[in-house]
């Protein structure tokens, strides 16, 4: 196992280097730059723009810029944001909490609800519930998050006045209840697609398991139905879900990009969009590396966990 983990880590580091080089090149080779926003405002002449470009070191050859950035990153210096001059790690950490809060809530809702719907759908295959769940999942997967977010705001904030129309908290409040109140709508929207996805995966997995010989054997042994389902059925059906969970991060981050914009949620998704828009190279690269690391760790953990919980799987 240790050798397997070491191998996977080495692969992950290689992948990160490749991702950083490709990401850096694409970002810097794309037309425009961090000073474009000032070019049209009329407050900075070409002379001013050239001067600041030199001061930021953006006039150097791209490989030099990359090596400089990479070298400093290895020493723990991820650079400073072009926008507010803050250290990139500090910028990321100041937004990470909000995203984790949203993602964790959405994931918990999605896992609990999705698994329940999936299991029940599998056990009552082709029932009214199963049909409704299937249709509902298709609709949920088809609805654009942006549109669903706006509809949620319109219904629950504008028309009913039950929920705030965005923001993470009321300025000056910050109580737990206030946070919870603001969290409901974006978490609901972000969880919608996830719930549908988890439901579909769980249903398929459960269907496969409950038709296995060992389930029939368990029944033949006279075990109670609840024990058959939880101990023999669910435990095995959950195995593929580990892979799904391991690959959740990019999906959730993608959803957060949209949900955070609609609900003015100050998280990583919005930071990423803003940083791309302003060509804030250090922050974009920082988020890219952070996300890539998280995805690789998630994938690695899923593989290890899979091996741990399923004795049939051997790694190394």
């Amino acid at each position, binding site marked *: 196992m240790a050798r397997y983990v070491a191998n996977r880590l080495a692969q992950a580091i290689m992948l990160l280097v490749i991702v950083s080089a490709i990401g850096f090149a694409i970002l810097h080779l794309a037309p*425009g730059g961090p000073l474009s926003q000032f070019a049209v405002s009329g407050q900075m002449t070409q002379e*001013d723009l050239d001067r600041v470009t030199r001061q930021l070191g953006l006039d150097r050859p791209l490989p030099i810029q990359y090596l400089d950035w990479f070298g400093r990153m290895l020493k723990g210096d991820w650079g400073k944001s072009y926008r507010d001059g803050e250290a990139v790690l500090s910028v990321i950490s100041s937004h990470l909490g909000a995203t984790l809060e949203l993602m964790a809530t959405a994931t918990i809702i999605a896992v609990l609800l999705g698994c329940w719907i999936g299991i029940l759908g599998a056990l009552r295959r082709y029932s009214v519930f199963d049909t409704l769940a299937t249709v509902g999942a298709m609709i949920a997967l088809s609805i654009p998050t942006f549109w669903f977010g*706006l509809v949620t705001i319109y219904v629950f904030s504008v028309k009913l006045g039950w929920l705030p129309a965005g923001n993470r908290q009321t300025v000056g409040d910050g109580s737990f209840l206030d946070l919870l109140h603001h969290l409901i709508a974006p978490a609901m929207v972000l969880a919608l697609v996830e719930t549908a996805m988890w439901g579909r995966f769980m249903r398929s997995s459960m269907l496969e398991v409950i038709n296995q010989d060992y389930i029939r054997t368990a029944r033949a042994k006279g075990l109670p139905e609840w024990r058959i389902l939880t101990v023999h059925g669910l435990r095995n059906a959950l195995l593929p879900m580990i892979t799904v969970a391991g690959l959740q991060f990019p999906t959730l981050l993608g959803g957060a990009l949209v949900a955070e914009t609609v609900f*003015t949620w100050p998280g990583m998704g919005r930071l990423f969009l803003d940083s791309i828009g302003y*060509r804030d190279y250090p922050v974009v690269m920082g988020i890219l590396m952070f996300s890539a690391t998280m995805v690789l760790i998630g994938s690695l953990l899923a593989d290890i966990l899979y091996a741990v919980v399923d004795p049939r799987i051997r790694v190394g």
Partner: protein
Amino acid sequence: MADDTGRFGVGAVHLGVPNRRQFFQLGAGAAAGWSLAGSAFAQTERPTSPPDKPRGQVIAALSQEPTVFHPLMPGIEVDQGIWWQVFSPLWYIDPDGNFVPDLAREVPTLENGGLSADGLTWKIKLRSDVKWHDGTPFTAEDVKFSIELINNPGFRARSRVGHSLVKDITVVAPDEIHWRMEAPYSPYMSILASFTFIVPKHILEKVSDPNASPFHNAPVGTGPFRWGERVPGDHIQLNAHTGYHGKGPYVERVVFKYIPDLTVLYTQFRTGQVDYTGLAGILPNFVQEAKTLKGRKIFVSSTSSVEHIAPNLDFGPFTDRAVREALYLGINKQAIIDALYYGLPTQTESFVPQQAWSFQQGLPQHKYDPAKANALLDAAGWVRGSSGIREKGGVKLEFTNSTTAGSAVREQCQQLLIQDWRAIGAAMRVNNMPAAVIWGDFWQQSKFNSVIVGVNFMLGSDPDVTPRFGSGAIPAKGGRGYNTYQYQSAEADRLLSQGAKQFDLAQRKATYGELQKLIRNDLAILPLFQSFIAEGIKEGLQGFRPNINMSINSWNMREWYWA
């Protein structure tokens, strides 16, 4: 005439012909005489008295996040919204176009001896009762430090235009500073008023890197509000500075809330989560509905920005003036304004806002006349081919038009232009790009055929457009300005040079009037309309005064209060 505060209550229309002395009483006159379109909205409701002590808070929503808090570094309008609350300039320009002293005791003029007759020596008297937010007294040393910092080669200054001419700065007394200008430069008065906030020497002289220090994210100023907190990506809170040297502040704190989506921003205004919709304001399609909201007031006011089609004057067909005129005649401007902008903006023919003292009346008015456009092109030898597109000497009358991708209204405008110009035998193709792309080299190095863009041509509030239309300001030809149109005219260069050296308001008005006629005649730009902004505030909030001389209408939050 100016009173003892330096105010000069004149507007462009009412302005007589001031002499040189009056010009200096106005400051350099750069912004004098703006008669603000929105001045009718000087107060949001029946005025009441402001409270004795700061009370309550104002939540102002912004569609872009302020991130630059050092006021001398490159920033955008939303950043300036913060600077106006935390810092102070020597003087500022009020909605009527008057220079009003802020850190200065009086605005330097010829009459009060602040300016020498040749415009080269400046003597500024400063207030002696001003304190920085940390309690340190403000002095002339801070002014000297600020100007020297801007000219410091290691500092990432936003712009050195005007400042680079300042030499021999002398602190005569803690409340008086003198300097010499290398050359007379009248727009400097406006630059000092609009963009030059004074920063604290006692803090910044100690930092090792002038481009990055704790000050950059927790600034200390002399403005009406002191730094509170910043939650990145969410909001910035400023608290009342009770020792402020001017009027106000009357609210305990202001919160700038970042809401990137304009539809969501408007929704939060509807639901009462925000008190004021700041920069970018309310989308035109919501304005009529917003006016019906209970407990809300909507203000539509002109801005200095002129929406126009920017032709690349070095690009094939556009080198022919007849083509530019025909294209201009072929635009149904009013249809664009009515259909896409709900009739809110006004047509214009000049790069100068219509409320400015320097605006030239009586410029030829645009008329939608496709028949005349066709005749003009026929006469110029542009013949229709089999596809209906004209050509001349093997050059087809076809070109691309670009704007920021995702700018829905401009994209719709492009569709109308395609129809309008197709009717006169010109083919336009859309080539839109994201903001960071289009306004990069594509724009700066004139790689476009034509662009739809809104530009504030004024330097601060001065009509000096040397960086926009000067022959030496074309970046694609090694110039140092932003003449991306590649407009070249010896006569324009002469007028620009003359205007920047003149200190007589009447003479300057004549000079810039001639320049506007020239630009209009040459059709260096095809102006569509003077832009506008629709802003909403909660009923009961007093003191909101749109100011066309400022880049953001939340400039005077110190005067805001709840009735």
